[in-house]
């Protein structure tokens, strides 16, 4: 029996409903678990990544470790690039 024949006899009346139920179950469990996660600190840290462009090299020594530069500090530049 060909794959096409098998698929043809499978019947697809409940296909959409089954797909929906599977998805909702996965979605609900994902949401439930996500909101029970205890890694709040790490998530908050991850959420702040866009606000950290990196440490300008010139200030790095003075600022020490763990002092990310703000956007405005980025102009403390080293080299120039011809336009």
């Amino acid at each position: 029996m060909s794959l096409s024949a098998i698929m043809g006899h499978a019947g697809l009346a409940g296909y959409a409903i089954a797909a929906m139920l599977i998805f909702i179950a996965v979605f609900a469990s994902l949401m439930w678990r996500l909101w029970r996660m205890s890694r709040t600190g790490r998530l908050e840290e991850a959420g702040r990544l866009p606000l950290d462009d990196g440490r300008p090299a010139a200030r790095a020594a003075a600022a020490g470790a763990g002092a990310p530069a703000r956007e405005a500090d980025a102009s403390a530049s080293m080299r120039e690039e011809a336009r």
Partner: protein
Amino acid sequence: MSSRIEQFSYNDDVVRKFVMATLLWGVVGMLVGLIIALQLIWPSLSFDLPFLTFGRLRPLHTNAVIFAFVGNGMFAGVYYSAQRLLKARMFSDLLSGIHFWGWQLIIVSAALTLPFGFTQGKEYAELEWPIDIAIAVVWVVFAVNFFGTIAKRRERHLYVALWFYIATIITIAILHIFNNLWVIAGPLKSYSLYSGVQDAFMQWCYGHNAVAFFLTTPILGIMYYFLPKAAERPVFSYRLSILHFWTLVFMYIWAGPHHLHYTALPGWASTLGMIFSVMLWMPSWGGMINGLLTLRGAWHKVAEDPILKFFVVAVTFYGMSTFEGPLLSVKTVNALSHYTDWTVGHAHAGALGWNGFIAFGMLYWLAPRLFQTKGLYSKKLAELHFWVATVGILLYVVALYSAGVTQGLMWRAFDQTGRLLYPDFVETVLRLEPMYLVRALGGTLYLLGAVIGVWNILMTWRMRPAAYEVPVYEAPALTFEKERASGGLMSFGWHRVWEGKGLTFTVWVAVAVISASLFEIIPTFLIKSNVPTIASVKPYTPLELYGRDLYVAEGCHNCHSQMVRPFRAETLRYGEYSKPGEFVYDHPFQWSSRRIGPDLHREGEKRPGTSGALWHLEHFRDPARMTPGSIMPPYPWFESTPIDFAAIQKRVDAMALLGVPYGDAVNRAEEMAREQAARVATGIAEAGGPMNLGDKQVVALIAYLQRIGTDIKGSVADGQAVMTPRSRAEAR
């Protein structure tokens, strides 16, 4: 464990280039959009020139705004944010350059081919095979550059914006390749590997997911990066962003069939598309809420900052469009909205409001940073741009919503005797003219806003220093010690590990996308009962095939559908509803998504014979004379442009390669085409038309139009001819 400190700089040069390209193509794409909007009011604006007709310019507009404006804007945002989120310069400056110039070359190629009729005839996938290959190559270059940057990053965690970029790169590659499988039939001519129902399914899987993964996921990534930047606070909920990402990536893929409700697509696929479309509402609004709540405690800034205004309105339009999308996917709503301007209004609410405003917000934010000025040239001009464009969008979408609902209701309206209340299609067109005028006004305002924005950013660019500074940053090198997933499956330690491993994460995104696709694709292609065979359906003759190619080249599907839906209002107006088995030789399918003119699937039986041929001839010359009020442009060049008979054999051979049973035509296609052309031309002459049309394009088009939908005999009831206002009055 201490790490070595590394110094690096970012490649902002490529970002600046993409910003400039975004501005240029944005104005071009919107201007073409305005021109075609005006052509719907004044068709003479095509000036009887082939390359200025609505059918040819509309794909130029859509391609320009999607792939040139949003595409370049997306690349600008990706290149800027990815480097900073990964604490690494792009993998290769050379690849960045190839990506930029390659993409611009593709855009120029599109601009040089689409107006001249080189098209595959599939929405948003019109570009012909050499350009398709170029797109694939440039996309691979982009992917190598992006993933190479991930590989050399100095930040372990992949921020959520990067997940959206990864999903974009993977999924667009898959969609582009599988929707553009073709057999080559000439230097700029190809036929889709798929036909009819399967081609429609693949095309709308592509079309829908191009919206999802080109116009939504990368823009969401940009939102998750630039909105916190502009608001100077982190995203409201990182948890919600995880949920947003995975549900969106998994569900979007399934929703494509909602573009084909009540067509010849199998019912199960249609239902599946609808259900997943409705469920899409959840993650989409999760994302919208996450975006808006990022501004918690910072709403006072919105009042003062035009950039935040752009972002807030963009996210609001995202929410509105992603509510409207599921609504339109509900079958009963779709029965009214499909083929009307409602869909066009919906698309533009997303394009102008969501994509356009995110792009402009991002460009305004980037401009002073990239051009290293103290600020924007003029904040007031940015405010003016915002308000002009916002009013423009509102006028635009309200006009098209009104037009769509009006049109849908008029098409299905019956009088007290059970007859169509508006049997002449043109009546519904004429009713829309005032709304088209308001739409054009809205579009003009939006374009005006864009021009103000371009001026403002260019003036900012003029304030740049003599030489750009290149800040140097430093960060510890990333050590790849093993991070074990803590806890069980449901502890989400595994997700934490994925987030840190670019390759693993990418593989799982690909698995999510591919598995969801296969759930629909396998049954669609394998179940024979999806497309019941109809013995009377035969391949097009060589001349009809050539005529069909002209139909495709002219972009007729931009205004005319070839799909009579199984509704009484449609079968009364057009004839028997369309069957899946009627399209098995249609490479590509031409069902269309819009009816600016009437459906043509039963045209062959409506206007048969020599009188029908003469009608078509005169209609091509001057549509408004044959159908008063028609907004179709004239096509006088069909009568003077010769048929390229020498090209026909190769096209028939290509179709035969696709499995179309051409029999004798494989050996003598040109001869057969000449014979049929002579017969059609003789018939036209006998009916009182001009002589000597036997080698002109018009006979090929007429041969095709008189063939469409005739394989099922009796598909148009007796007396179901096209009615003029006079004949309708007489019938009453």
